[in-house]
């Protein structure tokens, strides 16, 4: 092997000699510092045997170099290489050999890994450490002076900045100091001081974002400028200051084209969409089958790369068809030795962004013959709460008695809610050595929800390490996750959410605080204001519970071997396994069952087993395994570089579930076991499994850092398709062109890149979808089991679903990268949809499974901008903005299987929100029949589900050791039903339902006082065709003058259900909102203070999550979750974060 030697033959001049001497000193110093942390493994391992007499020193050194991997660094002028030496060594370490070799001379040796530095002894002694003043000038590559450059002394709290001429002066510097010159947009430069007192420093431009390396599919690291598709990176630091329950929440608004729906429901995971689709999650190169972002603690994240669209993730096959979120976890540390980091976040509920309110004027219906109020919950359509005597339930004496009827429960909901919190604590321990690292991390997240008895605990422990020995590298990690909640509760109208009891179907006429003793007969009868419909809310939270207990392991192994310097083989294996035990316990005497809740995914919903008590047990488990083997080659030929890859993957996943439940009630109250079942317990099971085998290849070329081109090809074989169609190809091509490299140099244009890509992807059918099998129903009647044929006609020739995406983008960096803009436009053509296409059941079947001939196109635009408007020594303001939009359109319709509706047309959007409008006269007035609004008998399009556009913004202002970060984001457009408000109206609980007419209705029973605004038909008729178009209309109108009760009118006006029906137009809200998602004010304790404590760094932050919400139409609930069905009050969290490093 060719050894590098520092030859001094040109150093004749004494000054040059001095300079050389200095450099060596510095080199030794720097290397010496490094060595302090290193263990000289090679020098300790390697043993030499020499027997040389009377040879020149140079010969001996050459011999040592030949026999070992050591090489020597020395100055020929300073070392007498012609000196005759003799040496005998028998299996000695190098240290001993060198000691003998230079015995009696002043030459010292310093061993750094495989490098041995030889120098005369005087050079290693530093001159007196007197403090000097240094001055200098900093310029750019074209000689222009650079003002505002930070000049700091490495490792010290000492520094200054350059003035307008680019000059600086700094006192109290010692020769061993190293000066660091830094300037935004420029590469940092380090200069050792030595005896030099004047410095001419030239800083080179740094192409931020261009030399930046991002992780792409299969874990391939690439320069961002080489990419022909959109990738956006989020650093781990961005998500570790404000730590909520899930890291997904902290990603909201940070990436153009990435939409996160953050539901306010307790334990609900944020839902992540890239360009409207759910992406694949890849952790350290492994696309696990069961891992979600919930299982990754923020503190374990080094970076997140968001691969937008199918081209970026084409190498993942169909699983990457919707883009991918690539998480790289923290591995080693940037310095050797032991690093311990503690990051602790504590946040408490500080009010609510959105919380339902309730009217407190009216109570429930009072039976006029008994003067007793209704005890089956039907809202608050009753008498005014005016202090009259009404026979009511007294929860203290647990009996009915006459009491003044007053709004004593007007604050029931608030009184019922409890202080919530999120505690997120992490300890990270890293031992970094020359050979590799070992890392352990433990995280605990504890979340107390808004309701009583709501706790959710999440614990993650991970350990990983990597080593590199010669050509061989190994990296492995294992993580264990536990998620436990004694009661996740029941959400939504069909789950009998606490709001169902407290805000909708009850009246504010009882004080919830008196109902904490919720038993009348322990374990059998509840102490409740109601005798049906509404459970005592405390009873509901403690005696109707849904618990989860989930364990999840994931393991990865990554083996690399450098076959040749340019050829590498990698084997990567990832395995995950989970088990989840869920129980639903409903006490005897409950007025509600478990509703729509299930104990295994896709399990049975249990309705109407409530009053006798019930117990459901669900066990689910599953695993996935993903094995990759690939060979990569990287070569450079003159101006060309070539990266090639070939590999294969086997992916297999299986999910099992078994559920069992009692039937007919519990034999003993509060005995929650399948043994308690009065009728034989019911048992069910499910299983699903899939295997996909793949082969793939990739070829990337670049020329002169100017043109980059890449092509990939992957073939999958999926078990979910028939033999004839299960093999399918995904090709992709992409390229980028650095236009600024061929333009004449423009001062303000740092970089201009143009990129484009195309891919075609396929998606196979769902698991078991192609099978035509019987459904067996056990005990369909008595002991008889029933069988039924599938209601779907399946063809054997089902092809995978297809889509092609074309993307074009550009990136411009301006003003030495103080500003950058990235723009992406894409068009995705979707065809060969695998659809259970509905057909008339008169054919004997309800659907046909086939590839329909309908086509869609999704078009989108994403803009991302980063600006640093202020940048001085003390101040810095960084701003990141993103904006994105997309919409999906029909581009071709299937004459047989496309839905035959007016809004299904070529050119129309596919995300239509359909409902039934009120019937209106030509002037737009609502037509009434008998005083009630009339609905159309035909569906019509009201709007679109998807937001028109989404945006996000992040601002960080730093002043010395202080920094303030604010992130905000929002969505504009999109329609969602407000189930909460709809039912509040219908139950008479809505604050706006307190109108004068209602008072008259309530106080003068039998009168009708409300006249709806609009018209009525006085003569004539109307007829419609099957689309709902009017075919004849002879109607004549007059103003509506028929009075009805306000209740009847309201119920008709807010028609709709939570059971799948569409709402009235009044309850279909725009989801437009914006949120201040996160805020943090951080103080970084000065290093000098830390070092006195022996600490590596401390920062303290005041933090907030979900700080502020503004919504266009949603007032009582947070539209962030995307749909609204009794959303829990949206919590504002405020707290503290403390990070300490040792």
């Amino acid at each position, binding site marked *: 092997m060719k050894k590098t030697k520092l030859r001094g033959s040109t150093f004749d001049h004494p000054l040059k000699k001095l300079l050389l001497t200095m450099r060596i000193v510095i080199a030794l110093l720097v290397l010496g510092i490094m060595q302090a942390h290193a263990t000289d493994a090679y020098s300790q391992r390697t043993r030499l045997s020499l027997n040389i007499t009377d040879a020149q020193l140079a010969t001996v050194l050459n011999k040592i170099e030949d026999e070992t991997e050591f090489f020597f660094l020395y100055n020929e002028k300073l070392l007498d290489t012609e000196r005759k030496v003799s040496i005998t060594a028998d299996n000695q370490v190098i240290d001993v050999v060198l000691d003998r070799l230079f015995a009696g001379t002043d030459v010292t040796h310093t061993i750094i890994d495989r490098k041995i530095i030889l120098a005369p002894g005087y050079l290693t002694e530093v001159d007196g450490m007197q403090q000097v003043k240094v001055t200098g000038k900093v310029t750019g590559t074209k000689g222009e002076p650079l003002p505002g450059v930070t000049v700091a002394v490495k490792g010290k709290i000492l520094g200054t900045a350059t003035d307008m001429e680019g000059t600086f002066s700094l006192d109290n510097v010692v020769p061993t100091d190293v000066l660091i010159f830094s300037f935004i947009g420029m590469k940092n430069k380090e200069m050792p001081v030595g005896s030099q007192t004047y410095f001419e420093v030239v800083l080179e431009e740094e192409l931020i974002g261009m030399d930046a390396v991002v992780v792409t599919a299969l874990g391939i690291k690439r320069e961002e400028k080489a990419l022909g598709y959109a990738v956006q990176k989020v650093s781990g630091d961005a998500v570790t200051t404000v730590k909520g329950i899930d890291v997904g929440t902290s990603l909201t608004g940070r990436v153009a084209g990435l939409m996160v729906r953050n539901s306010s429901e307790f334990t609900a995971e944020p839902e992540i969409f890239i360009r409207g689709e759910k992406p694949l999650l890849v952790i350290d190169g492994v696309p696990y089958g069961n891992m979600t972002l919930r299982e990754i603690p923020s503190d374990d994240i080094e970076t997140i790369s968001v691969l937008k669209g199918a081209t970026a993730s084409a190498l993942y096959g169909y699983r990457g068809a919707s883009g991918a979120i690539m998480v790289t976890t923290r591995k080693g540390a940037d310095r050797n030795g032991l690093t311990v980091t503690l990051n602790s976040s504590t946040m408490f509920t500080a009010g609510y962004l959105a919380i339902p309110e309730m009217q407190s004027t009216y109570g429930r219906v009072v039976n006029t013959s008994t003067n007793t109020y209704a005890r089956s919950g039907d809202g608050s359509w009753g008498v005014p709460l005016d202090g009259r005597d009404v026979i009511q339930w007294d929860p203290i004496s647990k009996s009915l008695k006459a009491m003044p009827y007053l709004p004593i429960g007007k604050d029931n909901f608030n009184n019922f809610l409890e202080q919530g919190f999120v505690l997120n604590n992490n300890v990270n321990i890293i031992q970094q050595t020359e050979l590799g690292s070992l890392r352990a991390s433990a995280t605990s997240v504890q979340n107390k929800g808004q309701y009583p008895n709501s706790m959710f605990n999440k614990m993650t422990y991970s350990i990983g390490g990597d080593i590199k020995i010669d050509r061989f590298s190994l990296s492995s990690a294992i993580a264990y996750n536990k998620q436990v909640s004694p009661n996740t509760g029941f959400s939504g109208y069909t789950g009998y959410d606490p709001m169902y009891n407290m805000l909708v179907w009850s009246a504010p006429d009882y004080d919830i605080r008196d109902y904490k003793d919720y038993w009348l007969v322990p374990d059998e009868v509840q102490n409740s204001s109601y005798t049906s*419909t509404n459970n005592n809310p405390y009873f509901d939270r403690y005696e109707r519970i849904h618990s989860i207990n989930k364990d999840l392991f994931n393991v990865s192994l990554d083996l690399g071997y450098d076959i040749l310097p340019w050829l590498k083989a990698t084997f990567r294996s990832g395995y995950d396994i989970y088990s989840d035990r869920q129980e639903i316990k409903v006490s005897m005497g409950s007025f509600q069952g478990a509703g729509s809740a299930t104990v295994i995914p896709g399990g049975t919903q249990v309705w109407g087993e409530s009053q006798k008590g019930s117990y459901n047990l669900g066990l689910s488990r599953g695993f996935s395994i993903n094995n990759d083997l690939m060979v990569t080659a990287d070569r450079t030929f003159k101006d060309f570089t070539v990266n090639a890859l070939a590999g294969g993957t*086997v992916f297999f996943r299986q999910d099992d579930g078994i559920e069992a439940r009692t039937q007919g009630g519990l034999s003993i109250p509060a005995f929650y076991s399948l043994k308690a079942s009065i009728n034989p317990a019911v048992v069910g099971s499910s299983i699903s499994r899939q295997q996909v085998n793949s082969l793939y290849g990739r070829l990337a070329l670049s020329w002169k850092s100017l043109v980059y081109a890449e092509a990939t090809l992957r073939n999958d074989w999926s078990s979910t398709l028939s033999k004839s169609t299960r093999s399918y190809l995904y090709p992709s091509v992409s390229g980028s062109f650095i236009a600024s490299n061929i333009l004449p140099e423009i001062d303000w244009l740092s970089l201009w890149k143009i990129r484009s890509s195309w891919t075609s992807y396929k998606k196979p059918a769902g698991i078991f979808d192609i099978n035509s099998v019987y459904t067996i129903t056990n005990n369909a009647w008595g002991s008889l089991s029933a069988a039924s044929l599938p209601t779907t006609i399946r063809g054997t020739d089902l092809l995978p679903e297809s889509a092609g995406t074309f993307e074009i983008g550009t990136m411009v960096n301006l003003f030495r990268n103080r500003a950058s803009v990235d723009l992406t436009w894409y068009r995705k053509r979707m065809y060969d949809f695998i659809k259970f296409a509905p057909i008339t*059941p008169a054919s004997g079947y309800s659907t046909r499974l086939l590839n329909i001939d309908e086509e869609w196109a999704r078009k989108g635009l994403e803009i991302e901008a980063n600006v640093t408007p202020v940048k001085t020594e003390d101040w810095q303001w960084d701003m990141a903005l993103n904006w994105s939009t997309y919409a999906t359109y029909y581009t071709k319709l299937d004459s047989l299987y496309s839905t035959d509706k007016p809004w299904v047309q070529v050119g129309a959007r596919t995300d239509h929100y359909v409902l039934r409008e009120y019937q209106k006269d030509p002037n737009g007035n609502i037509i009434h029949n008998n005083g009630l609004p009339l609905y159309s008998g035909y569906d019509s399009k009201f709007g679109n589900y998807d937001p028109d556009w989404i945006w996000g913004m992040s601002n960080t202002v730093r002043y010395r050791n202080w920094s303030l970060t604010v992130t905000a984001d929002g969505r504009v457009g999109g329609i969602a039903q407000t189930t909460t408000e709809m039912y509040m109206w219908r139950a008479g609980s809505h604050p706006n339902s307190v109108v004068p007419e209602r008072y008259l209705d309530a106080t003068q029973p039998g009168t009708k006082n409300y006249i709806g605004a609009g018209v009525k038909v006085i003569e004539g008729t109307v007829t419609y065709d099957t689309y709902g178009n009017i075919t004849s209309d002879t109607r004549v109108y007059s103003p509506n003058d028929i009075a009805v009760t306000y209740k009847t009118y309201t119920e008709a006006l807010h028609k709709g259900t939570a059971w799948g029906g569409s709402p009235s137009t009044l309850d279909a809200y725009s989801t437009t909102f914006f949120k201040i998602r996160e805020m943090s004010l951080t103080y970084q304790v000065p290093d000098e203070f830390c070092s006195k404590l022996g600490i590596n760094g401390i920062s303290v932050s005041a933090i907030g999550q979900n700080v502020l919400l503004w919504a266009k139409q949603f007032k009582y609930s947070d539209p962030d979750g995307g749909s609204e069905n009794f959303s829990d009050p949206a919590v504002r969290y405020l707290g503290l974060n403390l990070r300490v490093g040792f």
Partner: protein
Amino acid sequence: MKKINKITTLALLLAIISAGCSKFEEINTDPNKTTLSSASMLCTKAILNVTAFSGRDGKVMISDNALPKYVGYANEGQLGTQYNTIGATDFGGLLILPNIDQMLIEAEGTVMENSYKGVASFVRAYRFFRLTMETGDIPYSEANQGADGLYRPSYDSQEEIFLGILDELKAADQYFALGVKFNGDPTPYNGDPVKWRRAVNATALKILMTLSKKENVASLNVKSRFAEIVSGGFLLEPSTGFLGLNYSTQNKHPLSGTNDLFTSRTVMSSLLVDNLKILNDNRLYYYAEPAGAQILAGLTEVDPAAYNGVDVSIDYATMNAGHSASLYSLLNKRYLQEEATEPRRLMTYAEQQLILAEARVRGWITTGTAQEYYEQGVKAALSHFTTVNSAYAHTMVINQAYIDGYFTGEAAFKTEQEDQLKQIWMQRYLLNFMQDSQYSYFEYRRTAYPVFPFNPATSLNENNPDGIPMRWLYPSSETNYNRENLIEALNEQYEGYDEINKLMWLLK
């Protein structure tokens, strides 16, 4: 060493890959599903398809009973059926047809083949019958051909459909005549072909009576078909039992355990209550609870005056106020509290005898007397209550002595034909409460009796506030996936407009 490791790893992986490929079919097979079946299991499915209550929950049952004015509903907003509006039906019931074909394939060559053929013909006939009763013309001759590639079946006229239905029932009679005891029957007949044959013929009589307005249509030959079945003699006998299903703790009555949610605010109609009172009919005490206000006023639960129905056409708010004042009788608690308070009866001896009574009055048959048939029918109907838990009967128990003394006063068979028919119709109306209540609506369309209360000021039937809707709309599966055929059918029947007050052929 390193090379060897490398090669081993590679070989191992290739082995995994190649091993995986060969098992793809196995991997993509759901062990919880089967490609095997049996005629008996398909038979269970087919019979349940027509006998079991198909509504999602108890509220659907309440709604079904509100349409023929048995009950009102003081809860959760106005119930459309109570205020005379209905929506679209669903052709989902026709999904049973391929299962019936498959049942016959499985049964081919077995001793039970004829019995299964009987079941097949009956279930098909019954399924088409109910759907055409709801909407009018439906796909019939081209139905059930999806497997052969016909996804957009054309519609047949109601006349043709009825002809087919009657022929299929006739065929069912013949198959059961040749049949042996078969497996998979969930009904109390337990696979007895003789009982099934009787029930098939009784059902044929019921359908023929439904066609009374078309008694002179030559193709159908209603009267002679009727007479032929009666003279054949294979009709239900008191000992045959009903065609339907027994509820149990496992297969609960739809209203059982509904937890007051639906049932507690179901108020009895004055139409039902008053007619029971006129007849001194103790079913009043089995159907209803006394009105709370009346009991507070000192009346006892045995006093008919304690029972008070609501005019179900009154203003909804007024009804709610009345309900809040405990003015009205509620649905008897047994429906809520008992798991199997009464079985589901689709065809009974009682109804058959009442149909025969009407046929005798109309002169369709000449054997027996109308009075005999009438009294047999009513007695059988009353005897259904001897199995109901008498604890719910407010001490006014129906026993044999009561049954024997029933035919006095208004209950005694009258002399005028017009009165006789009304008596017969009223008894069928009383019989089907909480049973096949939809049929009472069908019967009202035919007989306009009992006289339903109407109030144009409260009706939600915007195009005909003075009447009950005459049909369901066609389902969205037709407008979306079979539109051309639907439009043709609408043009044939209803001037192109799918509307609930239009009259189908049967009712013209």
